[in-house]
């Protein structure tokens, strides 16, 4: 295959493109979903194709096809060139790419147990056991458990001379228990909502979750929520658990630091960003204890890889350092706007999509708090756990999150449980109210498998390292 891609790149060179890359992607997905005692999804999906991106006459063109023959590659290359020429009809200035040494390299996700070699029967058996525990109480209307496994091989060749072959393996699992009673519907999930937790890892990642071991607690909490009072409204001190902190980072930091958003090219769908160019290097984003990094090199994160889809090696870099906003996620096209080279965040959702700036592992660095000590120091505060809903404005300032459950903290422990908690805020005010972040003992990289961006819509798998953290004067409970 790589020879066909190299031929296509040579063909692009012969056509006089300023730059071109050819990317072949082969993906195998396995999805399992059990609802109550029925396996309602058991799917194997194989997908392959290639995409050709060209820069010609100062503008971009991209075309793709599922037919991976040499003849089709030339046809698609010509189509991409024609599209680039059409794009140039409206250009205001030529696209200039940041310098990048062409890399020849390989990368493979390390894992202990190949998830595609674990039998379907074994996987189904684990989920069936979970569901049987969840369904033991008749108030549980729906027990829904899932496992997902994805293997992606990408071969990337550019007219600059890059040749990269990488294979990424991803595993994910989780479950949700829905209890119903007297017109009330309440859910609890483990280890996270929205299809659980994910990582670039093998089946060992699933085994470490101990899915079965948490099912009874999850069931009892869902039932307890049916008769729980609504979360009280008002300004409160809150401790947000790790999985929700991951989504808080995702929505209020990860997206607004995407430089393509900042430069306006995502306005039509996802929106722009309040973190405008003038703010880089001096804007106080959060309290001094808040440090957020982008790190695609970390082991096991769902946003970990060897090279991005422009052939730039995976990197670690600062985004917020000691509360000050210091850096964006960049691409070869956008990085020159901040006098930098790309930090390697361009990724595409398959061969048929153009790469966009996407989050990698955007991690809130751990602090020094022990959770027990933090709880003991937070009498009367609310402990909020597991995301239920999310919404944020198109500049990423006004956010609102709904959670599955809240507890009032009494004597250092979880006390009264509340249903339907919400909290809302304005991004920099919120992060400046953070006075404690738990330490590495409570820190975990949470996989987010469903990050949407772009037109046509692309779904990216990203991650966020996070630990429980405390915030003051947060508006809680605005729903009726």
């Amino acid at each position, binding site marked *: 295959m790589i020879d066909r891609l190299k031929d296509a790149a040579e063909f692009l060179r012969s056509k006089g493109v300023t730059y071109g890359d050819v990317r072949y992607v082969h993906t195998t997905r396995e999805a399992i*979903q059990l*609802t109550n005692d*029925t*396996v*309602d*999804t*058991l*799917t*194997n999906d*194989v*997908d392959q*194709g290639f995409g050709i991106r060209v820069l010609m006459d100062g503008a*971009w*063109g991209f*075309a*793709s*096809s*599922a*037919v991976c023959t040499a003849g089709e590659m030339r046809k698609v290359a010509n189509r991409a060139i024609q*599209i680039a020429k*059409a*794009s140039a*009809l*409206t*250009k*205001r200035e030529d696209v200039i790419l940041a310098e990048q040494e062409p890399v020849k390299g390989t990368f493979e996700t390390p894992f202990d147990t190949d998830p595609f070699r674990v*039998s*379907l029967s074994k996987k*189904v058996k684990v989920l069936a056991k979970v569901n049987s525990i969840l369904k033991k109480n008749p108030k549980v209307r*729906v027990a829904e458990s899932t496992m997902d496994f994805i293997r992606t091989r990408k071969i990337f060749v550019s007219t600059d001379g890059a040749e990269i072959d990488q294979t990424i393996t991803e595993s994910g699992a989780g479950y949700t228990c*829905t209890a*119903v009673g007297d017109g009330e*519907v309440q859910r609890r999930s483990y280890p996270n909502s929205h299809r659980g937790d994910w990582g670039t890892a093998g089946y060992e990642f699933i085994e470490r979750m101990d899915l079965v071991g948490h099912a009874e607690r999850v069931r009892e909490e869902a039932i307890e929520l049916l008769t729980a009072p609504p979360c009280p409204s008002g300004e409160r001190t809150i401790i947000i658990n790790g999985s929700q902190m991951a989504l808080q980072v995702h929505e209020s930091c990860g997206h607004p630091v995407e430089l393509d958003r900042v430069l*306006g*090219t*995502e306005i*039509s769908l996802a*929106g722009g960003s309040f973190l405008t160019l003038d703010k880089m290097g001096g804007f106080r984003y959060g309290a001094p204890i808040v440090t957020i990094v982008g790190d695609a090199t970390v082991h096991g994160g769902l946003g970990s890889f060897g090279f991005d889809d422009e052939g730039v090696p995976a990197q670690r870099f600062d985004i917020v350092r000691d509360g000050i906003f210091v850096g964006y996620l960049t691409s070869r096209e956008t990085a020159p706007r901040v006098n930098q080279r790309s930090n390697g965040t361009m990724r595409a959702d398959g061969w048929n*999509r*153009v790469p966009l700036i996407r989050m990698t592992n955007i991690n809130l660095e751990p602090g020094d708090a022990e959770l027990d000590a933090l709880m003991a120091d937070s009498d009367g505060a609310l402990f909020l756990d597991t995301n*239920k*809903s*999310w*919404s*944020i*404005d*198109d*500049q990423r*300032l*006004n956010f*609102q999150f*709904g959670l599955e459950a809240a507890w009032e903290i009494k004597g250092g422990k979880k006390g009264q449980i509340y249903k*339907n908690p919400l909290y*809302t805020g*304005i991004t920099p005010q919120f992060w400046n109210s953070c006075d404690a972040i738990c330490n590495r003992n409570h820190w975990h990289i949470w996989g987010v498998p469903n990050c949407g961006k772009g*037109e*046509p819509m692309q779904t990216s798998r990203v991650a966020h390292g996070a630990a429980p953290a405390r915030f003051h004067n947060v508006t809680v409970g*605005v*729903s*009726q």
Partner: protein
Amino acid sequence: MIGRDKIISRLKETLELNLGDQSEAVFLGSESHLTRYANSTIHQNVSETQTKVYFRVVTDQKIGVAATNSLSKTDLRKAYKMAAKIAKVQKPNPDFVSLPGPSDYAQLDTYHEKTARFTPRQRAAKVRTIINRAAKKDCMVAGSLSTGCGEIAVVNSKGVAAYHPLSSAAINLIAMKENSSGYAEGLARNIDEIDFSKIATTAITKAVKCKDPEELTAGDYEVILEPAAVGSIFEWVNYIGFGSKAFQENTSFMSGRIGEQVTGENLTIYDDGTDTSAIAFPFDFEGVPKRRVDLLTHGVARGVVYDSMSAHRDDTQSTGHSLTPDATGEGGIALNLFIAPGQSNLKEMISNVENGLLVTRFHYINGFINTPQAVLTGMTRDGLMRIKNGRLRGGVKNLRFTDSMLRAFGTIKAISAERELINAWWDSLGCIAAPAMHLGSFKFTGQTSF
């Protein structure tokens, strides 16, 4: 486009291996092209040719699904065999009765050659015209223009051999000034039915009128929701309420309430995949003909949409609303929503508001907060305007709403006679035909700074 005969014969040929009690092959093919523009220049321009074939094999009610995007005989057979292999390790699904048999389908005009063959240069020319018009009002523009075509086919061992082609064109447009923006969109099977000039005028005019927006405190306001705002709300209301899964799991506001008044008497919603005044398609992914389903009639819950397995659970028939075989766990989903029109118009609605807001559209709505009450939250975007004494009075900084849609749509004062086709996440398979609405009460719960 591959064509009916080639697709059907290739699928039939594969199913001749006869690997289960019953087998099904679903083909989706598309040629899609999208020109994206921002800062008044085209910055992304893409083209894609994709196919996908799903195989579903059922043996003793045990169901296996596998998919491939290759049309080679070898790969198709491999995927079909994989589906059969998966079925063997499955547990029986008691809701499976049978794959459907052959049916007659509505003859719908859903394919237009000009739209299918629209070139990158033609799309760029349309965008350039919009850019030039916006420049005359000192506006920058952003958005996308997509065109394309596709084919969907369903073949099964019970004799179904359904095929239908489609084309579609869509544009969304944001016009921007220094501190304001305006929005408009268009959608059609035939690109000639999109009025690009009107869309540009609407977005640009709105951006100009909304400049220097005033700040308002959150609270309960009388509102006029334009069609894009109505459509985005019902995209979520549909997802959490009108499908069989949510209904059967008791998480829907419709659960246990069929025949009851759930919202205002002047709200009627139905789904009809055969109505070519919107984005029609004649059958679902099981090859069942789509039929009209009344969801809410004068605010009374009437029914939800089903695929074959969820229909069996409720001892009824499929309404022609199945998704692809890999998503059968989701039950039926309505993809062709119509909100019944009223007799008013936007101008008349505005004239009847003493102190209120006009919402052009919403951003980032989420409906998982409290689904039995259909509580949604989201932000206004691209044209929130103040109405005072029956007249538009300029822009307002954006607000967050959090409200029960059952409550809010219980306060409808007027609905427009004219509807617009609003694009939804399910893209070229359908849309939401939405009018403008005048609501007496809509709860805004937060503010932002722009």
